[in-house]
């Protein structure tokens, strides 16, 4: 059964584009990634699904219910973590949880064990006032308030941003538990690697449009890395002559399977790489390097090359 179903969903803010013809289906029990650069329309889609904003065109249903007409009914079974978190400053963490839980069937008393468990997992002090919390801790409060009523659908807007690595790990453990319990998870992010690790399917959105919906398995063959190498001197041991020609020769030496894109600038060579890292390191070892960076590339760059490649 489809938990989320949108049909040519469209949102314009006056003349400004929010999203355009978004058609998506998320099945029950799925972990669905929603990925795209900032401003692509991820939050707009989510906020439309929850009826914070009204669609300009198209339709959408959650649990088979209309997102505009039956919004309150839908929200009874949705847990939502907003990207930017704002809570009542004067409340303590515990008071906020009481307030949140009071809206759901059973109220605070029924949901209290789960709240306590989550507060412990995320190491939150329940007597702390919200205004005294760091951004990271506020984010954790956001996670707990989204999970406390054991929702059927979790909508998480960039849940890992602002969390330290340890808490990110805990979050994914908790989410895995929610998934096991049967929850559907809709997960927006601009970090490709976490989506690749965690999701079954992923939709890629850019400039308000869904570029494509893909099984994560298909993306997995390309775990991308951005490699930046600065050679100590042009030429190197291979004695291919000095100057830029030498660098070009060295760069040539780095031409191994998995290099999607290569840019040479003086003694610096930049690669977008999705091949075997061991092979890359063996190649690099033959050269005299000044420095070496390996980092996760910006999403746009990956997609650009991913689709260039696909297009061929």
């Amino acid at each position, binding site marked *: 059964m489809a938990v989320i179903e949108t049909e040519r969903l469209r949102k314009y803010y006056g003349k400004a584009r929010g999203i355009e013809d978004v058609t998506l289906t998320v099945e029950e029990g799925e972990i669905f990634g929603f990925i795209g650069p900032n401003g692509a329309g991820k939050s707009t889609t989510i906020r439309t699904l929850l*009826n*914070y904003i*009204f669609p300009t065109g198209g339709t959408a249903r959650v649990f088979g219910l209309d997102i505009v007409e039956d919004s*309150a009914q839908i*929200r009874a079974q*949705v847990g939502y973590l907003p990207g930017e978190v704002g809570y009542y400053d*004067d409340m303590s963490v515990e008071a906020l949880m009481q*307030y949140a839980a009071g*809206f*759901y069937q059973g109220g605070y008393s029924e949901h209290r064990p789960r709240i306590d468990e989550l507060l412990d997992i995320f190491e939150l002090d329940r007597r702390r006032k919200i205004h005294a919390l760091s951004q990271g801790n506020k984010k954790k409060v956001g996670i707990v308030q989204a999970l406390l009523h054991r929702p059927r659908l979790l909508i998480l807007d960039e849940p890992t941003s602002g969390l330290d690595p340890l808490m990110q790990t805990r979050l994914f453990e908790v989410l895995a538990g929610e998934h096991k319990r049967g929850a559907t998870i809709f997960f927006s992010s601009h970090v490709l690697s976490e989506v690749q690790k965690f999701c079954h399917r992923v939709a890629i959105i850019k400039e308000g449009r869904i570029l494509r919906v893909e099984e994560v398995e298909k993306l997995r063959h390309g775990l991308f890395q951005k490699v930046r190498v600065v050679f100590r001197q042009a030429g190197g041991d291979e004695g291919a002559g000095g100057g830029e020609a030498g660098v070009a020769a060295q760069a040539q030496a780095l031409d191994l399977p998995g290099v999607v894109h290569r840019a040479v600038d003086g003694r610096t060579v930049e690669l977008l790489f999705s091949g075997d890292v061991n092979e890359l390191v063996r190649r690099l070892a033959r050269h005299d390097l000044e420095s070496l960076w390996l980092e996760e590339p910006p999403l746009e760059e990956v997609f650009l090359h991913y689709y260039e490649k696909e297009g061929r």
Partner: protein
Amino acid sequence: MNVFNREMRANYRSLLVWVLVIAGLNVLVLAVYPSFAEDSAKLQDLMEAYPEQFSKIFGLDRLNLGDPMGFYATEVYFMVLLFGSIFAAILGAGILAKEEDEKTIEFLLARPVTRTRILTDKVLTYVTYIVGFNLLVSLISYAAFVIFITQAYSTKALLLLMVAPVFVHLTFASLGFLAALFFTRRRSVYSVTIGLVVGLYFVGVIALLTRGLDWLKWLSPFQYVDAADIVLNESISALNILILLAVNVAAVAATYALYRRRDITV
């Protein structure tokens, strides 16, 4: 009733501050009354020294500062009416604007609660608060009244002067509530609504003082519950109250209609 309970708890501190300040001023003013009344002849001389317009603003062309009701109407009632309206306007505007200003609306709208329900709970909160505010201020003022004022007075007139501000306060709270849809920053909606209260007060003053502009008094809620009218007639005009209530209904209904279709972007 979740939102109602929350709002009732969230605003009581500011209520207490406003009650203490305004009721405190009332007590101080009433404490001065005995020395006023003693020298009532001197007082008349003093009043005559002021320009006629001045007396008119405070209704002193028809009321006498030297008698209990005249004193209460011009000194105490005036403060409760005007300052209470500022309190009410801030309350009505803030109770709605703060959710978007502090992005807490993201939290609230994620719950299974309709927008209509949120608004209803907030309206119930400000109505309760305004009634409570007037009740507390009136109780304290009444205690001071009994202590400091020994002359005979009309209980009915006094009671009416204690009830009348409620309708004006409600009106400004409802207008503030509506204004919060257009000014979602608390600071800006406060300036706008306080400006509205003070502005409409002066519209009333202008209507009193300017021949040919007296129709302006229909624009000023303050003129609907004129102190001299209430004291002299020992009644509040039912028509005036109905008009004020109609303004309330219209403002709140407009807020509901607009809020239900509003894009909440914070």
